């Protein structure tokens, strides 16, 4: 067998599992099945361990057995394409959401997304956050044309369950060394959407909820709207240009103070 074919055959066997192909049994000295299984089992154990490390609150909420079952199902359909194993699992929240059967499953999917975004913020690039003072020299006529983009650690998400409360409870249980089984408190419940902003201004990731109107304004700015377009859209909503400019300026000041935005 040529090297390329050997590698593809080994990879298929390790990822897909199942019976050892005859070609691989013949390719190595006996006991072939037992020896190849070391690699196949190690593959699943390693990816599962990486997911548990990256998503400890999800693992605690699920409990050992349920977490193992869910990540096994995910690993079976999701080969890693990442150089670092710590990047494996980005698709797990969507995988959990797609298979959700009840509100607890929905909570776990949102908890996974929230925890993943916190982890992503942990080692994101610092970027070049603009400060309020950076805008002091901008002439009034130029303010409408101002554009911004998110710093690399910024993440926006919305929850429709009490997933963040569950994340807090799981983290407290982990910190107290009391996260051995599935965590049922708080009980899962659907809620009106809550908007969240995640950032890492210095070395620790932080998050806070956003009022819906502020979240919508921030999303427009991050999507490429100028500050002027944001004010116009807000004025149309509020029916008051002065109040719109005041609100937009207040939000912008808060985002800049939080280190959320870079100048474009």
């Amino acid at each position, binding site marked *: 067998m040529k090297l390329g074919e050997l590698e593809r055959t080994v990879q298929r066997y390790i990822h897909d599992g199942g019976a050892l192909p005859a070609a691989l049994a013949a390719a190595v000295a006996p006991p072939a099945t037992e020896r190849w299984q070391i690699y196949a089992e190690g593959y699943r154990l390693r990816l599962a361990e990486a997911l548990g490390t990256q998503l400890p609150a999800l693992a605690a909420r699920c409990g050992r057995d349920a977490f193992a079952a869910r990540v096994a199902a995910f690993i079976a359909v999701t080969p890693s394409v990442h150089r670092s194993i710590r990047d494996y699992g980005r698709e797990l929240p969507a995988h959990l959401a797609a298979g959700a059967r009840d509100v607890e499953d929905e909570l776990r999917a949102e908890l996974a997304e929230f925890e993943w975004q916190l982890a992503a913020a942990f*080692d994101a690039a610092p970027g070049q956050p603009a400060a309020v003072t950076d805008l002091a020299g901008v002439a009034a006529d130029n303010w409408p044309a101002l554009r911004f983009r998110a710093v690399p650690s910024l993440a926006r998400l919305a929850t429709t369950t009490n997933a963040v409360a569950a994340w807090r409870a799981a983290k407290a249980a982990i910190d107290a060394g009391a996260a051995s089984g599935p965590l049922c408190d708080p009980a899962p419940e659907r809620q009106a959407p809550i908007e969240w902003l995640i950032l890492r201004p210095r070395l620790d990731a932080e998050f806070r909820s956003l009022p819906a109107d502020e979240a919508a304004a921030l999303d427009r700015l991050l999507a490429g709207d100028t500050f002027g377009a944001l004010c116009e859209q807000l004025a149309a909503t509020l029916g008051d240009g002065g109040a719109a400019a005041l609100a937009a300026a207040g939000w912008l000041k808060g985002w800049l103070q939080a280190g959320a935005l870079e100048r474009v």
Partner: protein
Amino acid sequence: MRRSLGFGLGLRPPHYTAILDTAPAVDWFEVITENYLVGGGRPLAFLDAIRARYPVVMHGVSLSIGSTAPLDLNYLAAVARLAARCEPEWISDHLCWTGTGGTNLHDLLPLPYTTEALEHLAPRIHRVQELLRRPLVLENVSSYVSYTSSAMSEWEFLSALVARTGCRLLFDVNNVYVSSRNHGFDPRQFLDGVPAAAVQQFHLAGHLDLGTHVIDTHDAPVRDEVWDLYGHALRRFGCLSTLLERDDNIPSLEELVAELGRARAIASQVLSEAA
């Protein structure tokens, strides 16, 4: 380039603060390259702080030099950027493949020891050395399968690769022991078979002995059989830079520093024998 850095530890996050607070008796640290191919945050901040106080070596796990997939130039560019940042004494990875066609199995899979594999590896190693502007240091991996297509021993394969590429060797003493048990060869034959002048560094780690075979776990202290082989390696290759690895069941920094003391003691004994 072959100057010994002394006795080092693998840099692991649970020890970041203790290293900076206690300045342990460790001569150098080896960092897992992929853990620091990130934009910023705490990992890079600690690496910068520790790099300011200790020599550092970069040790990768995803180069996949033996893969038949094309070299990942984006990955190599990121490795080069990290090297520019932390100025490692050298850069190492493993003589293995980790996946093909864009997939990463996150394992260090062995290659068959064939002329085909040598001819595949040599231009890839040359290319990596050009891109990183330094000799690549390659580690022998532990293995659980032995290919029937292999036309030479692992040490003959390593020797041929060194001759073709000028790469250097990271001699993992534990891996040699593990593979010797799994494939039934004499580890000292391996030790005697590799070109001594190409060996840059030693690795030491723990393993799990299951009787019928041995698993390279890095989750326990180094076992006596490996310490014994380490002594032989020192006699054959000289007192080169030695690195103690622990990746699971990570104990306190003090415990690892104490275990590193055993490596120092063995090296001291070997040096006194030679004097």
